[in-house]
């Protein structure tokens, strides 16, 4: 059988792994709100009070919602349950399109209106050649 030292080291490691695992678990659970990169429109609606500080909201750009007004872009972010209106002036990434993911960084004016200072396009997990996506569009 193994010596006493080996058993001691094994015990040490088990205690280390248990305590560290539990610590990390608790930290992650309690920090859940800070770990998320953005809030969805549904989460915005559920806020008890308006957040004054800079936040990010994310979701899909609603179909046929992008309107360009002088130097302003107006569009709607949806998670298919709730929606929020967004205005923004500035450059948007190439992948900013209707029906695609988006993350907007800025300030919440009220629960239906968000003033964005920065727009990020969110890419989804689908990768395919252009011909294939055209075929899918036709269907």
């Amino acid at each position, binding site marked *: 059988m193994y010596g006493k030292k080996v058993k001691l080291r094994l015990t040490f490691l088990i205690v280390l792994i248990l305590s*560290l*695992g539990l610590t990390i678990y608790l930290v992650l659970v309690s920090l859940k709100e800070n770990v*998320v990169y953005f809030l969805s429109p549904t989460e915005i609606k559920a806020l008890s009070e308006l957040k004054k500080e800079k936040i990010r909201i994310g979701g899909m750009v609603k179909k046929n919602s992008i309107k360009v007004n002088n130097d302003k872009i107006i569009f709607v972010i949806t998670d298919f349950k709730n929606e929020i209106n967004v205005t923004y002036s500035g450059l948007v990434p190439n992948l*900013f399109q209707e029906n695609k993911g988006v993350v907007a960084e800025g300030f919440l004016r009220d629960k239906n209106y968000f003033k964005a200072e*920065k727009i990020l396009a969110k890419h989804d997990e*689908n990768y395919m050649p*252009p011909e294939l996506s055209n075929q899918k569009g036709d269907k």
Partner: protein
Amino acid sequence: MNFFNQSKIFSFINKYHNLILVFFLAVLSLGLIEALIISPEDYLQGDSVRIMYVHVPSAWISLGIFSSMAFLSILVFIFKNKNLVIINKSLAPSGFVFTLIALVTGSIWGKPTWGTWWAWDARITTMLILCLFYLMYLLAWRIFEDKDSVVKITSLITIIGAFNIPIIKFSVDWWSTLHQPSSIKILSDSKIHETMLVPLIIMTAAFALFSLLIFLMKYNTELIKIKNKGLDRL
């Protein structure tokens, strides 16, 4: 506990080193031809999808190497097997470099796709933490002179850092992140079209061969160091 005869491994590495090198170069050229020429561009990202063929394999290999190091470190810590220590020490540099490559290529991809070089989202931040753990491991070998304590400290660094690995893996599922969820899942169909999956797999094989090559060279160097110091082991 002598699983490996070191002089046998030494001659084995010298004998097959060139063979692995040739094999690596062949797989790499095939992978690059597939990734850069044959495979189509993406319907949304255009040509920047090709960055993925370097980014994803690097990330996989950096995670794989750290996981193996953590597993071996548990054995090292409990049983004090010195051969495994040398294996760990030889694995670390290529793991570190591949983590850096994953971070840098991800940043280069992020600018045209997301519109930003860097985002403090869960996946990216945890990858940065992995990079820092690799760095700590490598620095610990230089800082601590005493052989016994350096073995304990380095194996504890990898064991503690291993908690980060499942967090990296599941970060995109647990939290809303800017980084997309994984396209390849074991239990369901891949979200990557097969014309793009083939170069991805070949490039992964090429990078794995490259890390094997670096690992063997590093392992040999470590053995030579030990011999030159007149020690029969670490």
